[in-house]
């Protein structure tokens, strides 16, 4: 902007005409790349740190453990390891978006899993009744937290810390001191430990790649036809190409036989992966394309502005906690499926911090208003890779804790620095 002081109205109009670019609708590749670079410089990092982190972790662990880390068996193991963290983180993205925190999400996932296991083993209920009850329990917990936070205006930090303790108590009471409940239901166990038939995996992967490309191209075509703001077609095509390559590449690797013994065959995509995929699509749709999602961002960005715009802020606050704890329940079910049991300590310990770390590493801000559902997937993969790689290296427990703590702190510092950068650039 020019710093010259205009002398009169005419000067001002000329200034307005000449000094400011008019609204740009279409980009060519150069201007789009330049815009992206400017956004990066202004602290809009998005998923970039997570992708760089993931790539460097892969290089690091491949270098340190060349035989085991990139083996097909370990890649499959890594993907199931990431499932519970990712789903828990996806729920936390909603909570973080409105600028709140839910410290009880981890133990809520444990409690819901314990409830499910109890219903299966002692109640003799079919799996779907147990699963629906577990998710319902999660939503009830979320409603209670949301109510206390949104209506009584107790800081969410305190409310969820209280729930963190209280819910552990309930889990202990349900399962009994020091006990575990085994989970043997076929369907539940299959989620994280069984694989899809190879043909189904390929069909789903191709369908997703085609569906994604079609959606992106259709949107671009609609924006272009109506002369709206749109990305250059070259970038849209590259984006679609990358997504398709990742989908098909992952499917290829997971479809290789990874059995240790040549006598049996073990291949295919674990059933939990399409579950996360579905949740990712649904959450992305809700956050990006519905007015409910738009209102979540608005409450996180400026709650007062949202209130003045007629948005029911209380309702939004309660609903994000419901979504957060509901997804936590699903995460607990997947964790139970992976371990074939639910222990008293399920969801306690570092579960929650892993999930918060995943969301923040993926690019969701702890200060509210910024983040996407996909952050949980990228961040979840980073955390799972660290956990997996350190496991392979046989790192001592104390070191694992230390390293994970440092990574979480690193992600949070990056978030805080990016935020400072943004407020320096704006205004």
């Amino acid at each position: 902007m020019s710093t010259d002081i205009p002398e009169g109205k005419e000067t001002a109009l000329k200034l307005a005409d000449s000094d400011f670019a008019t609204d740009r609708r279409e980009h060519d590749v150069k201007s789009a790349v330049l815009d992206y670079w400017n956004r990066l410089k202004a602290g809009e990092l998005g998923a970039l740190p997570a992708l760089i982190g993931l790539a460097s972790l892969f290089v690091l662990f491949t270098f340190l453990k060349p035989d085991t880390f990139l083996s097909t068996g370990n890649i499959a193991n890594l993907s199931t390891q990431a499932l519970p963290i990712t789903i828990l983180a996806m729920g936390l993205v909603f909570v973080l978006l409105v600028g709140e925190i839910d410290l009880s999400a981890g133990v809520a996932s444990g409690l819901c899993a314990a409830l499910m296991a109890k219903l299966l083993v002692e109640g003799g209920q079919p799996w779907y009744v147990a699963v629906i009850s577990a998710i319902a329990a999660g939503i009830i917990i979320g409603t209670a937290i949301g109510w206390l936070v949104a209506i009584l205006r107790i800081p969410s930090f305190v409310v969820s810390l209280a729930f963190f303790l209280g819910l552990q108590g309930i889990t202990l009471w349900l399962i009994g001191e020091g006990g575990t409940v085994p989970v043997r239901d076929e369907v539940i166990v299959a989620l994280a430990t069984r694989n899809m038939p190879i043909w189904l995996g390929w069909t789903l992967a191709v369908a997703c790649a085609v569906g994604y490309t079609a959606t992106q191209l259709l949107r671009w075509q609609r924006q272009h036809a109506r002369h709206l703001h749109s990305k250059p077609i070259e970038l849209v095509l590259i984006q679609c190409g990358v997504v398709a390559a990742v989908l098909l590449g992952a499917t290829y690797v997971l479809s290789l036989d990874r059995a240790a013994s040549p006598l049996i065959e073990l291949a295919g995509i674990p059933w939990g992966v399409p579950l996360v995929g579905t949740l990712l699509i649904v959450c992305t749709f809700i956050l990006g394309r519905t007015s409910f999602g738009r209102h979540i961002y608005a409450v996180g960005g400026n709650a007062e502005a949202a209130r003045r715009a007629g948005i029911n802020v209380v309702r939004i606050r309660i609903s994000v906690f419901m979504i957060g704890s509901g997804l936590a329940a699903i995460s607990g079910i997947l964790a139970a499926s992976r371990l074939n049991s639910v222990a008293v300590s399920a969801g306690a310990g570092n579960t929650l911090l892993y999930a918060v770390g995943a969301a923040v590493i993926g690019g969701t801000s702890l200060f509210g208003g910024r983040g996407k559902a996909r952050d949980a997937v990228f961040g979840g993969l980073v955390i799972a890779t660290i956990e997996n790689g350190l496991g392979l290296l046989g790192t001592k427990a104390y070191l694992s804790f230390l390293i994970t703590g440092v990574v979480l702190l690193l992600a949070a510092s990056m978030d805080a620095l990016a935020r400072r950068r943004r407020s320096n650039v704006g205004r």
Partner: protein
Amino acid sequence: MAETGDPVLRITGLNKSFGAVHVLHNVDFTVRLGEVMALVGDNGAGKSTLIKCIAGIHPTDSGQIEFEGRPVTIDGPRAASELGIEVVYQDLALADNLDIVQNMFLGRERRKGLVLDEPSMEEAARETLARLSVRTVKSVRQQVASLSGGQRQTVAIAKAALWESKVVILDEPTAALGVAQTRQVLDLVRRLADTGHAVVLISHNMNDVFEVADRITALYLGRVAADVARTEVTHGQVVELITAGRSGDLGLAPQTAAESI
């Protein structure tokens, strides 16, 4: 169809007390389509209270509000915006993390079924900005966080103009702005009136007031000291009206002005 110059909002004999404090005394206030009405007064003169009564934030004690000739009661912010009264508050009600289009439609998003109708919102936002000759934004898909103070104010004002609004109330729109940015916003205020809105401009800055206002209403300790055409008064007279409630023949009777204190 209402014509330029028709009174769109007419307030007569408005009284408002907070407990024992009588804040507004028999206030008469009229705004007309196509006209910028400046509302001036010292701190505590009752400007904000008057605006909040019009915006439905404060209930009134007595007095009549007529909107387009019909008596109305404004019993909440929603009732005010349904009538077509939009307020742009001093602390701008914009969400930093949303882009310009998203902010302009916040809380009133257009939808197609379940899905947001982004193309139609983007077109309408662009149209409104073009109608107000706003050229200061690079892209309507820019995040508000990346805008300057003047640009934010512009977006907030354009947001108010988007909604078939008839009365747009601006609370100190230039208070925090630099010279060039003030220029932009004042031009926008003028265009807002020229495109058929009735504009109420609250300001402490006499230069701004004399630059864009058609009429000036001065409040003095909760009373209307004068409601005059801009061309009929000088800077000095308006300052006297603000500080003493009277200026020569203009203003409150000496007795009223004195007893108000």
